[in-house]
Each structure stands twice: as structure tokens, then as C-alpha cells.
């Protein structure tokens, strides 16, 4: 393209001309090396690789196959899983990357695969197509140089967003015209923020000076977004492949590691020490033993020449390595792969859970990561958003006040469709003109769009209205609908003119000049419009705290009363203000706004400053109150979380009063809860506030920590019994605490504040900016004992805290899909948290804890006899078991039962778990993976290992075990030990299983049967590929001996005896002490009634469903 010199990403950015690799990690040919490299970066895999290599190089007791095969198995399973996931990504990408797009080259359209687009290519996109890469919007088929885009697949917002073409290129709307363009684009380095973009385009005209234009997010068309209502557009590619904002957003997920994995690593270190200890002991003893010459080399067992010639130090070293290899099975090879499979498969149970399926949105729970299943059972702090999470986020316009007069209709909206002719109750009236001004403000000051009704499925529109409103904020829709009830209907935006039908059914037109968009920092938005008469008006709506300082002070009082009362009732309030602008003022504002928009640097700050200047000296007209209904079963869920020992913190951007009333409504605060306030109200304003804050903090600290009767040590969560405290803090006070000014020397604010927080039952943080939410989460996360935190939210403003917390949960709400996309788990409703945590989390924790302990246990009692055998074979590294048994033990004989257990076990039924939240505390603080249970399992493993070995040892003291006087050799010895081992370990799991499904039966008995079958088969054939036929008929011969049978049964029984005794004792104890707490809180569960008792009690069923009743 000679006439087009596009050097995109010029100034700062390096040239991004090459198409980067696609989001999948692998291609067909690099899969193997790359995947292997990735896998061997894991410590465990690398360790086994080293062991394998040692076996290949050094003369070791076991063949390399024994550790090579399990390693191969583990690597293969992981590779298949990762390959499958990658293939899915490939498939998804191919749909996008191989799709055809049209690129304009030399005034002609050329068809290209979308992945072949290079930076600088000019791309043509037609209506309803998705953008193939990030494009700078150059020209569109509509003459005003705009296009409509929906970003539903990026952030879930289904409204149409207007994007603007670069002003100087809007005319170039044919292939020929666009081809004449010569321009350079400079833009920032690719960054993931979807709503930020800074760039500059320099257009070189044929005869004039080059023109520079700034580029902003409104000029950028993002990959993944869809073109709507516009025939076609031209754009130049600026970010492609991995540099698109969409790709960057998918990468950015942090890897969260669960606490269980840390425990596993600690245990691994212990076992590694045991392993090294064993190897050292054996090596030392070997040389002590060999110091006696007739032990070292008796006449019947001479050394080879090579062995004699080796240096002693080298010999000792290889001996040490050989012992390592012999005992290396103590570190469970397959544990990692089993844990991974358990997590991967286990996550399906969450997404399949029918109780977490929501009819309304036709979706169930979504699992984005399977790594954190067990973390759900360890949560101590729940941070929840309010709007959309605790509440439904389906807004209803309740009332408004105009100049202090309250307007309220008695009709509730049904599903958002109002009755415009409904009678309105007037409590005194404001002036007619003020009323109209207020309603016009509601109609104009928003970013709502009209969507034709036929595009929306399942909604039957009002007969007169063939459209629905769409907006990124449900509040705005509620307000527009509210205005409609009072007779002012917003008809849509056409060519920058907003159309309104007023009470007299006349259509009014307003030219939309500027939209000062809403942002969470300003907490308000404005529009500047020109009326048909030419008057310039600025309407502003926003939170009272952000509006009140910007209006005439004398107007505030009458409205404030209403706003405060509405907030007390739990409504969301917004204040509406306006001001008239003179032409001169407007020109200035217009100029400033455009300048700020053009700025390449600090554009955000400059914009904010202009907004701040513009939205000043306004007049307050009135306020609105919108109700946000509470989610169903909210109070029950919160109570259950409390009872389960979790502390629930509400972090909301909302007003304190609104949030507080919601907290009372959802029983987060009880009437008995003593509230401590750290808000602008109590702290006050001005210079004194830091001192006042200091006083308050000390006072609360004294009250909570010093005066409180000392709770018994160990009862960490005993606060449930004493006086409950609730804390309310707002954003400004929080920032005062977290970032105190230098001169105060009050750096310990934070720790005092934290101590207060941790003593409170419930904490409400209102007026929070998204980043502050994350700060709070981080603060709690990093306290002593690093408690497990969970964040739940539904909107884009919750993403930061969702990412910050150990477990992030998204609600599939109405504020788009950002939260659920960035979360680890997404559920349709807040109430599903109860089952997710109390049942799934608890179970997964118990399962994985048991899995980990069991793995260590079964490998300890596997290897201990082998260690003991060294004392009886002259420390010669003679393996006790046959190589096949060594290899298959972990991957075939004992792997599936524990996997099935760790997927299906319900030691307590799900119903009981959900209905008795206190059970959750039983596993809190990683209780099952502490050193005590670990020691218990280790001792159990050691005990069983001793029983196996010495049992068989004493059995072999006998002259003959067969009734025909024939004798057994060393391989029979090992096989008896191994048989006892496999049966004991499997039956131990069977004893632990409380919830038997056909799968458990199949896998447990199947594994044992397979072991027997395999042993017969393995010993039944002279294998041509084996050097030694040592197992030939060993197993079958073993079974012909009655003594062996008796011994095997006896040893299995002795090994399991402690376990059986424990179970019996526990049963007796439970029976005796169970008049009390365990049985009682049983739900009138839906299931039981369904099971066939009562048909006539449907009412009860429904009641039970909605309000979990408890039988006293």
C-alpha cells in the first residue's frame, strides 16, 4: 500500500506488526515439548523425573519402569486434560480466527482470514458482524460518522453504545475513498481495561498541513463486540491477536492456590525428610553391617569385578541413591494427578446442582476454576456487595419529591410495565413548572436507549409501546419509567435529538450536546441539552452526597428530609439538579470538554476536572426513591452464614442509611446489635476529624477488646455468644484510616481499626469505591492467621474485590457479566451461597483432606515393610515386592477407590449440612489437615506397616506353610505382605465411606477383584520380555496354603482393629450424647415429603421450601 503509511503504535509502543500467537497455548507440533516442559516445572514431577533418571543411570534395585510408568501415567493424564482444554480454546478461536473478513487493499476488497489481519490493515465490517480485532473507527455508512455497538460478549451490557468515527475521515465511506487515506496512528501499549484508550491519529492531507486528532475509547471498536444498526464501517486495525483488549482480559486471571495445597507441601516435606532419613539409616547400617568381612562378601555371593573396583565413597553414594529409589514410593506419585482429577471432576457436581439452577435466567452455577472447591469449606469472611447481590437489582420507582413535596403512587409496577393513567397521590403540590422541569430532567438525564420490542423475546409490550428500555444501569430505567407514569415519556434519541412526549401528548425535541458520563468516583452524571427554544440546560442527577455540595445551600433542607427518610426505608435515592447555561458558558465548557478529550496524557484527570467545574452552582429540583427488592431467602442465608461462623461484611457503594436498612432487613444487624459508627456523621468534617476519629477508635477499641470478658483461648469464634457489635464505616473515613496524613503520626489507626473490625459480628462499609473494596479484602486477608476470604458481587465494581479475595463469587445478575466472568464461581442468586459453602464447600474440604491424608497413609504402609525388610536382607536394597506391584500399587490397585470416595463421599448428608450451619465450623481453620490428624494418619500407617511386615515375618518362622511340606521363597513373602496391604488399605477406605453409591461398590470391590485377577494373570504366564520369572505361580501357590489365608485374614483384621474400635466407640458415644444438638436441627426437607409421606401438605412443602423450618 504505497499511499498509506500506517505506523501504528508508534511513539512508545514497539511495533506490533506480527500477528502474535493465539490464545491457545499449544499447536500440534509444539504440544509435546512445551507441555512436558511446563509439567516438569512442577516440583513433584521433576522429583520423579530425577528418580527415574537415577534408576536409568545407576544400578538400582528396581527397574526404571517402576517409577517411569507411574510418571508416564501422571504426565499423560495431565497432558490429556490440558490438551483437551487447549483444544476447546482452539475450537473457540478458530470460529473467530478463521472467519473471513474483508480487508481493503488497493481500493479493492480482499477476503482474508481474520487471524491474518495485520496492524494497519483497513477492515470493513458489516452489520451484525463481530469485530475481528481492535479497530480505530474511521468511517461508517451513516453520514454522521457514528455506529452502534453492543458489547454483550465482553462485559455483558446489552445496550447499544454509540461510537464515533475520527472526525476527518468520516467522509471516506467507500473502498476507493478510504484507500486514499494517509495517516499515522500512535497509541498506548495494549492494556486490558475495556473502557480506556488513549491515542492520536495524524492525517496527512494531500494539500494541507497534517492534522492531529485525539483518539479515545469512543473511537475504538473492540474485538468481540458486534456492530448493530449500522450497515457497514471501516476501521484500521490497531491491536490484533493477543494484544486485543479481549485477549488481554482473558489472560489476566490470577492463579489462586488453595490452602490445602500448602498443607500438602508441608506434608511432602515431612515425607521427604522421612525418605532421606530412611535412606541415610539404611546406608549407614549397610556399611556397619558390611564391616564384618563374612557379611560383606561371603563365598557364596562374590562381588563382580566392577563392584570391587568402585571407590568406596562413590559406592556409598550410589547405595544412598539406590535406597532413595527403593523408598521413593513413599512420596505419592499419583497424588497430584488424583487431586487434579478430583477437582476437575468435582467441579461438575457444582455446575450440575439442580438446586442452584435458576429458572428465571435458565442457568445454574458456573465453575470458572476447579482449583478452589475445598476452599469453599474454609471461608471465614464473606464480603458481599449490596446492590444486585443482597438485593435483586430490579428497580422500582417508588416515589419522588419535588421541592420538598412528596409524590407517591399507590400502584406498584408489575414487571416494569407501568400504567400511565394510574391515579397519583399528591401530598401537596409543587408548582406545575417545577414538576415538569423535574420530569423532563428524569426523561433527559440518562443514557437509556430504546430497543424495538420485537427484538426482545418473551416480553409482551404495552400495546402503545413497541419498545423496551435498555441501559447499563437498572436505576435509570426505573427513573425513565417513573417519569412515564407521570406523563413524560422518553421516545428515543434520533440524530442527537432526544424526543419526549409530554403530559399533553406533544412531542418535545432536545438537542443532546454533551453527556457527562456516570462514574463511581463522581457518583453522578449530567447531560447538557439545547431546548427547541434555544435555551441551554444542564441536568444532573446523582447521589445526594455528590449533589448537595453543588447546589444552593438553602434548597437542600426540604429535600434532605425526604432523602434521609427514603434511605431509612431502604430505598436508593438520587437527587436531581439543573442549571441554565448561557451561550458563553456553554462555549467555554464545550471547548474545555473537547480539549480534555483530546489530551493524550492524564485525560482522565483533565476530564474529571472539567466535569467538576461544569457541575457546579446548580439548583436542586428534587429527589427520587427507587426500591431494590431483597433477594429471596436473604435473611435465612445470612443467618446460616453467621451460624456457620462466618463474618459477613457488606461493602457497598450505596448510602449509609440505605445500606443500613438493608442490613437490618437481612438480619445482618439485629435489634440487639450495638452499632459502632465510623462515618462522616460521627467523625465530623474539617480539621478536627482526624483527632475525633482517633478518639472514636480508641473508645471502640476499649469497649470491644479491653472491657470484654476474656474469651476462653481456643474458642476463636465465641463471639456468637456474647453481645454482638456491628460496625459501620464509610469510604471517606476508611481512606482516612488507611491513608492517614503524615503529621498525625497515627499509623497504628489501621491495626486498631482492624482489631475492632475483627471483633464485630457484622461490618457495613458504605460509600466504597471499587478499589476500596479490594483494599478492605486485602487488609483482612493479610491479618494474622490469614483467614480465608470470599467476595461475592454482581457488578463491574465488584471485580476488584472478587479478584482479591481467596474465593471470588459472581452473581449472574443484571449488571452485565463482568463479575461472573472474573469470578471463580458464579451462582444465579445469593441464596445459593448457602448450599455452595455449607454443603459443597464442606464436603469438598472433607473429601480432599481425606484424600491427601489417605494418600500419605497408604504410601507409608506400602513402603515401611520394604524398609523393614532391609534389616533382614543385609541392607542390600532388595525390594520386598515385585516390580509390577511396585508400579501398579498407586496407579491401579488403590487409585480408583479413593478417587470415587473423594468425589462422592457425603459423611453427613447434604440436607443436614445445609440445615445445620454449625457443622461448618467443624472443618474450619483447615482442621483436617493440621499436624494432629496428620500424625494420626502417619501413626496408623506406621502401625499397619509394622503389622504387615512382622505378621508375615513371624508366619515365616514356621517350618512349612503348605500341607505338602513345600516351602515359600522371598517373593511369596512379599506377595503376602502386599496382599494384606492392598486389602487393608482398600477396606480402610470402605470403613471410612459413609455414603455408598453403586460407584463406590464397583470401584472398591472391583479394585480388589482386579488385584486378585491381575496377580493370577501376572503369575500365570512365563513372560518372554522379563528377565526373571520370579512371580511365576507365586500368588496361586500362596492361596493353596491354609495358613496363609488365616494369616492374611488375621493381619487385615489386626490392622483395621484400631479403626473398627474407634468407629464402635464413636457410635456408642454419639448414641449416648445425642439427645442434644446433632439430631435436632433437621429440616422439614422437601425431599422427605416428596419421598411419599404427605401429598396433601403441599402448602407445608412450599413453606418449608421458602422458610426452612426447624423442629424444636
Amino acid at each position: 500500500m504505497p499511499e498509506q503509511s500506517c505506523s501504528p503504535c508508534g511513539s512508545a509502543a514497539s511495533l506490533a506488526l506480527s500477528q502474535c500467537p493465539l490464545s491457545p497455548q499449544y499447536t500440534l507440533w509444539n504440544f509435546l515439548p512445551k507441555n512436558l516442559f511446563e509439567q516438569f516445572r512442577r516440583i513433584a514431577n521433576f522429583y520423579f523425573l530425577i528418580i527415574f533418571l537415577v534408576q536409568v543411570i545407576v544400578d538400582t534395585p528396581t527397574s526404571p519402569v517402576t517409577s517411569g510408568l507411574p510418571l508416564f501415567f501422571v504426565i499423560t493424564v495431565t497432558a490429556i486434560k490440558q490438551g483437551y482444554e487447549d483444544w476447546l480454546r482452539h475450537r473457540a478461536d478458530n470460529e473467530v480466527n478463521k472467519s473471513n473478513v474483508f480487508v481493503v487493499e488497493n481500493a479493492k476488497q480482499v477476503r482474508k482470514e481474520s487471524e491474518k489481519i495485520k496492524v494497519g490493515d483497513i477492515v470493513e465490517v458489516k452489520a451484525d458482524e463481530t469485530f475481528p480485532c481492535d479497530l480505530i473507527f474511521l468511517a461508517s455508512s451513516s453520514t454522521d460518522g457514528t455506529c452502534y455497538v453492543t458489547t454483550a460478549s465482553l462485559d455483558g451490557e446489552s445496550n447499544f453504545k454509540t461510537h464515533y468515527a475520527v472526525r476527518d475521515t468520516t467522509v471516506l465511506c467507500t473502498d476507493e475513498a478510504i484507500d486514499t487515506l494517509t495517516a499515522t496512528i500512535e497509541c498506548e501499549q495494549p492494556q486490558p481495561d475495556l473502557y480506556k484508550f488513549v491515542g492520536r491519529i495524524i492525517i496527512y492531507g494531500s494539500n494541507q498541513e497534517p492534522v492531529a486528532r485525539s483518539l479515545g475509547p469512543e473511537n475504538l471498536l473492540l474485538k468481540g463486540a458486534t456492530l448493530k444498526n449500522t450497515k457497514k464501517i471501516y476501521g484500521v486495525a490497531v491491536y490484533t491477536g493477543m494484544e486485543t483488549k479481549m485477549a488481554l482480559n482473558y489472560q489476566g486471571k490470577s492463579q489462586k492456590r488453595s490452602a490445602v495445597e500448602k498443607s500438602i507441601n508441608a506434608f511432602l516435606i515431612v515425607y521427604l525428610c522421612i525418605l532421606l532419613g530412611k535412606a541415610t539409616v539404611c546406608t549407614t547400617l549397610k556399611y556397619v553391617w558390611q564391616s564384618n568381612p563374612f557379611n560383606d562378601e561371603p563365598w557364596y555371593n562374590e562381588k563382580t569385578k566392577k563392584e570391587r573396583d568402585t571407590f568406596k565413597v562413590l559406592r556409598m553414594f550410589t547405595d544412598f541413591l539406590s535406597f532413595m529409589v527403593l523408598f521413593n514410593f513413599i512420596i505419592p506419585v499419583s497424588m497430584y494427578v488424583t487431586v487434579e482429577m478430583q477437582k476437575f471432576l468435582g467441579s461438575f457436581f457444582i455446575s450440575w446442582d439442580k438446586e442452584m439452577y435458576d429458572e428465571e435466567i435458565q442457568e445454574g452455577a458456573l465453575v470458572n476454576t476447579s482449583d478452589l472447591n475445598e476452599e469453599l469449606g474454609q471461608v471465614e469472611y464473606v464480603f458481599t456487595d449490596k446492590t444486585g447481590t443482597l438485593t435483586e437489582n430490579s428497580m422500582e420507582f417508588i416515589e419522588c419529591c419535588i421541592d420538598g413535596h412528596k409524590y407517591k403512587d399507590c400502584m406498584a409496577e408489575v414487571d416494569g410495565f407501568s400504567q400511565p393513567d394510574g391515579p397519583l397521590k399528591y401530598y401537596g403540590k409543587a408548582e406545575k413548572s417545577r414538576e415538569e422541569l423535574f420530569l423532563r430532567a428524569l426523561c433527559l438525564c440518562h443514557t437509556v436507549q430504546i430497543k424495538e420490542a420485537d427484538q426482545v423475546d418473551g416480553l409482551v409490550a404495552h400495546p402503545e409501546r413497541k419498545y423496551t428500555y435498555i441501559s447499563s444501569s437498572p436505576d435509570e430505567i426505573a427513573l425513565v419509567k417513573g417519569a412515564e407514569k407521570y406523563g413524560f415519556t422518553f421516545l428515543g434519541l434520533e440524530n442527537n435529538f432526544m424526543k419526549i412526549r409530554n403530559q399533553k401528548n406533544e412531542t418535545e425535541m432536545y438537542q443532546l450536546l454533551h453527556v457527562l458520563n456516570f462514574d463511581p468516583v463522581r457518583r453522578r452524571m449530567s447531560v447538557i441539552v439545547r431546548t427547541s427554544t434555544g435555551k441551554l440546560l444542564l441536568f444532573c442527577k446523582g447521589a445526594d452526597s455528590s449533589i448537595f455540595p453543588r447546589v444552593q445551600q438553602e434548597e437542600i433542607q426540604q429535600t434532605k428530609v425526604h432523602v434521609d427518610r427514603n434511605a431509612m426505608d431502604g430505598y436508593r435515592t438520587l437527587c436531581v439538579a439543573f442549571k441554565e447555561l448561557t451561550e458563553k458558558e456553554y462555549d467555554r465548557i464545550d471547548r474545555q470538554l473537547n480539549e480534555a478529550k483530546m489530551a493524550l496524557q492524564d485525560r482522565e484527570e483533565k476530564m474529571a476536572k472539567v466535569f467538576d467545574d461544569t457541575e457546579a452552582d446548580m439548583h436542586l429540583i428534587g429527589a427520587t426513591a427507587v426500591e431494590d427488592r431483597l433477594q429471596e431467602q436473604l435473611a435465612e442465608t445470612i443467618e446460616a452464614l453467621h451460624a456457620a461462623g462466618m463474618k459477613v461484611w457488606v461493602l457497598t457503594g450505596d448510602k449509609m442509611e440505605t445500606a443500613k436498612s438493608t442490613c437490618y432487613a437481612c438480619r445482618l444487624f439485629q435489634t440487639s446489635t450495638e452499632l459502632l459508627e465510623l462515618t462522616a456523621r460521627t467523625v465530623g468534617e474539617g480539621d478536627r476529624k482526624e483527632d475525633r476519629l482517633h478518639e472514636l477508635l480508641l473508645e471502640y477499641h476499649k469497649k470491644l477488646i479491653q472491657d470484654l470478658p476474656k474469651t476462653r483461648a481456643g474458642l476463636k469464634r465465641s463471639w456468637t455468644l456474647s453481645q454482638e457489635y456491628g460496625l459501620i464505616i464509610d469510604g471517606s473515613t476508611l481512606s482516612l484510616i488507611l491513608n492517614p496524613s503524615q503529621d498525625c503520626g497515627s499509623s497504628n489507626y489501621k491495626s486498631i481499626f482492624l482489631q475492632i473490625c475483627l471483633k464485630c459480628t457484622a461490618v457495613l462499609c458504605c460509600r466504597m469505591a471499587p478499589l476500596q473494596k479490594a483494599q478492605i479484602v486485602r487488609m483482612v486477608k493479610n491479618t494474622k492467621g490469614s483467614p480465608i476470604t470470599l467476595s461475592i458481587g454482581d457488578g463491574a465494581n465488584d471485580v476488584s474485590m472478587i479478584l482479591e479475595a481467596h474465593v471470588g463469587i459472581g452473581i449472574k445478575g443484571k449488571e452485565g457479566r463482568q463479575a461472573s466472568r472474573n469470578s471463580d464461581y458464579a451462582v444465579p442468586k445469593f441464596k445459593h451461597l448457602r448450599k455452595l459453602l455449607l454443603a459443597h464447600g464442606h464436603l469438598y474440604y472433607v473429601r480432599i483432606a481425606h484424600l491427601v491424608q489417605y494418600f500419605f497413609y497408604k504410601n507409608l504402609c506400602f513402603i515401611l515393610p520394604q524398609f523393614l525388610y532391609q534389616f533382614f536382607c543385609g541392607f542390600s536394597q532388595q525390594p520386598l515386592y515385585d516390580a509390577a506391584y511396585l508400579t501398579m500399587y498407586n496407579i491401579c490397585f488403590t487409585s480408583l477407590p479413593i478417587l470415587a470416595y473423594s468425589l462422592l463421599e457425603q459423611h453427613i448428608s447434604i440436607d443436614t449440612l445445609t440445615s445445620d450451619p454449625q457443622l461448618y465450623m467443624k472443618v474450619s481453620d483447615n482442621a483436617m489437615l493440621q499436624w494432629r490428624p496428620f500424625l494420626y494418619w502417619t501413626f496408623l500407617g506406621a502401625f499397619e506397616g509394622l503389622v504387615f511386615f512382622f505378621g508375615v515375618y513371624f508366619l515365616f518362622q514356621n517350618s512349612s506353610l503348605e500341607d505338602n511340606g513345600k516351602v515359600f521363597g522371598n517373593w511369596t513373602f512379599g506377595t503376602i505382605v502386599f496382599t494384606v496391604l492392598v486389602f487393608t488399605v482398600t477396606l480402610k477406605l470402605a470403613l471410612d465411606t459413609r455414603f455408598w453409591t453403586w460407584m463406590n461398590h464397583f470401584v472398591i470391590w472391583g479394585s480388589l477383584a482386579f488385584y486378585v485377577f491381575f496377580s493370577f494373570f501376572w503369575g500365570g504366564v512365563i513372560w518372554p520380555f522379563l528377565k526373571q520369572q520370579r512371580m511365576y505361580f507365586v500368588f496361586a501357590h500362596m492361596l493353596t496354603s491354609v495358613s496363609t489365608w488365616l494369616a492374611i485374614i488375621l493381619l487385615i483384621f489386626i490392622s483395621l482393629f484400631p479403626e473398627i474400635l474407634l468407629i464402635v466407640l464413636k457410635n456408642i458415644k454419639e448414641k449416648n450424647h445425642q439427645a442434644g444438638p446433632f439430631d435436632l436441627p433437621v429440616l422439614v426437607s422437601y425431599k422427605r415429603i416428596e419421598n411419599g409421606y404427605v401429598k396433601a401438605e403441599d402448602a407445608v412443602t412450599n413453606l418449608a421450601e421458602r422458610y426452612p423450618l426447624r423442629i424444636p
Partner: protein
Amino acid sequence: HSQSFTLTIDYTGTEPSSPCNKCLNVSWDSTPPCTCTINFTLEHAFESNVFMYYGLSNFYQNHRRYVKSRDDSQLNGDNSSLLNPSKECEPYRTNEDKPIAPCGAIANSMFNDTLELYRIDNDTRTPITLIKKGIAWWTDKNVKFRNPTGDGNNLTALFQGTTKPVNWPKPVYMLDSEPDNNGFINEDFIVWMRTAALPTFRKLYRLIERKNNFQPTLQAGKYSLDIAYNYPVHSFDGRKRMILSTISWMGGKNPFLGIAYITVGSICFFLGVVLLFIHHKYGNRNTSADIPN
């Protein structure tokens, strides 16, 4: 007659009073073999079939270097392995550039004492018939161990090109006069080749069958054991024993299983009684609460 009797005679000869003391430092190739006789008395008659074992102590048949020092395909009759034994057999693989058959440390150290039993009745020595077949596992004798195959059945010809293990006085094809107990399928050899699990072990040597229903297999009385003492154990502080044992359906005399079962059984019984008592005293409180579903 399920009672098992066992009689053990240590004939190592470390004690100067022992008749075998003179043979203590015997070496492999002493000809003629050193012989000694030990007289003993049976207190009880051995009613059923009697099994005669030899036992060795402090002999590490389970040493790794020893266990692997064999070539199973050679023993299985594979002709190529016969002439080219496995490397595992080192340093007992070849001798004077000829492959050893059977190769390896296990075969090389095969137990080669000869034990004979006489009943002494009024100064007359009646030899007791010792049956040497039926002492190895059937599968070993018939499948796992095979003589090399080739033209004819002349073992000497089939083992052509190999040499005897260093310590052996005779080559493998001269182990026994009966063709079906000669070569690799000699049962004494097979028994020896099954390596023992522990350093103190015993291996089946001979069977003494009960002749008729009127006489016990071995009557109570005086016996003598004639030993051709070839096998040196003194150098590694080992012991040698001869064991006579009768066997019940459970195998030989087995104090371990009996004691273990009795102990575990009584512990269970005791605990059962205790728990039953506890259950009876405290446990019937909420039997009424169990509503059958």
C-alpha cells in the same frame, strides 16, 4: 493326628564335642567328602508322613546381588541363553571362556550335603527310605525349569559347550541318575533356586512316606544321621540343621498363628463384653427415637 512334631538337629559342628567338628573347615573340593554321624533319639513316634528339611542360618539368600544372580531363560531351556547367559549372572557367568550352566551365584552355591537316616535297632542300622521327588513346586518342575532341547535326550550332549558351576563337583547333567530328575529339573536344584525370604531358612530335602497303617512312619527310638559334610558355613558364621517334621492341614507346627488368633480373639471378646455392657446400661435411652423410615 493333626498334631505336628518337629525335631531339629544342628550338625554345624562348631562345638568341639560335636562329631562333625572335624568337618568344620571343609572346603568345596575335598575328596573324599568329610563324613560324620550324629545319633539321636525320637521320644515320640512320627505317625504321619515325615518331611525332612535342611536349614541354614545367617545365609543371605535374599541379598540383592544374590537374588538376581540367575538366568531364568537359561533354566527354562532356552538354547541361546544356555550358551550366552545373562549379565546378571556375573561373576558366575563364564569360567575359562565357557558359559556356566546353570549360571549365577544361586546355582553356584547349591547346598550339597548328603543326609542319610538310619534307624538303630539293637545295633542294626536299617536305612530309612528317603524320597527325593515331590519336593519342588509342580509348576517349577514342569514349566519354569526345563532342560535344553535338541536332538535326542542325552543331557550330556545337550549341555555340550557349557561348563559346570565353579563350586560344583559334577556338572548339572550328572546330578541324578534318573533322567526326569536330572539337569535343570533336578528337584534339589529347583528347591535351592527358590530364594528364601529370610537369612534363617529351611528347605525341603526329602520325604519319608508312611508305609502302612499299622506302623508309624518313624517309631520312637534311636536313629542316626549320616552326613556327607561338603557345605562350608563356618566362614560366614552360619549354622546347618536337619529338621524332621510332620505336617497337619495347616502346614507345619505354627505357634504364631495359634497365639495370635487366641490373643486377638480374647481381646475382641473382652471388648465386646465391655461395650455390650456399656450399651446395655446407657444405650437404650433413645431406642424409641429411631423411627423406621
